[in-house]
């Protein structure tokens, strides 16, 4: 089978806090700015790498119980998060279960969505910071 299927076991941690059981989606965007590096004589557009411009968006249920979503994130708005890690499963880190670490990202917004007849959710985007994969 050519794809990896994750049914329920990805791990998302904010620092040491495992928030996986409130999380329904995590979207990582590992991006590097592209800088044009053309000069006279160039025959095609060429680029070199600029700054990293990473982001991670996680969708969560908005639980206000002790040690849940609200308690975890209420004081983090407007702060830089030291480390956020994301991994496909709780198995040991390896080449087939790499650990992604976003270091020094900024959390600008906390926006719970209260909807009639549905569980309350929130989507949080962490912006910036350095991202790296680890296989060991």
């Amino acid at each position, binding site marked *: 089978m050519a794809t990896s299927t994750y049914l329920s076991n990805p791990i998302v941690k904010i620092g*040491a*806090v*495992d928030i996986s059981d409130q999380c329904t989606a995590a979207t990582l965007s590992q991006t590097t700015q592209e800088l044009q590096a053309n000069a006279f004589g160039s025959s095609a557009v060429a680029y070199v790498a600029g700054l990293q411009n990473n982001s991670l968006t996680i969708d969560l249920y908005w639980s206000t119980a*002790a*040690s849940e979503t609200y308690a*975890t994130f209420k004081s983090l708005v407007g702060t830089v998060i*030291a480390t956020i890690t994301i991994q496909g499963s709780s198995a040991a880190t390896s080449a087939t279960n790499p650990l992604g670490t976003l270091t020094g990202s900024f959390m600008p917004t906390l926006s719970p969505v209260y909807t009639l007849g549905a569980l309350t959710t929130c989507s949080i985007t962490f912006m910036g910071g350095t991202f790296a994969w680890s296989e060991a």
Partner: protein
Amino acid sequence: MDRYVITSSRVGEIGTAFVASPSDDIAWLLAGGFIQRSDTHPSKGAKLAIKPDAPTSKKD
């Protein structure tokens, strides 16, 4: 050195010691109820397996 005990399963096994890494935000973990300070010291009833002044040789 401050000691902490885990109080939420989000951080680890509840009741066990929390070993902080340099990147851990202790104030945030305390405020969120994930860990608590611990003043636990070895029990006064604890006994050493070998007393420091116990003779080690049976000769003489």
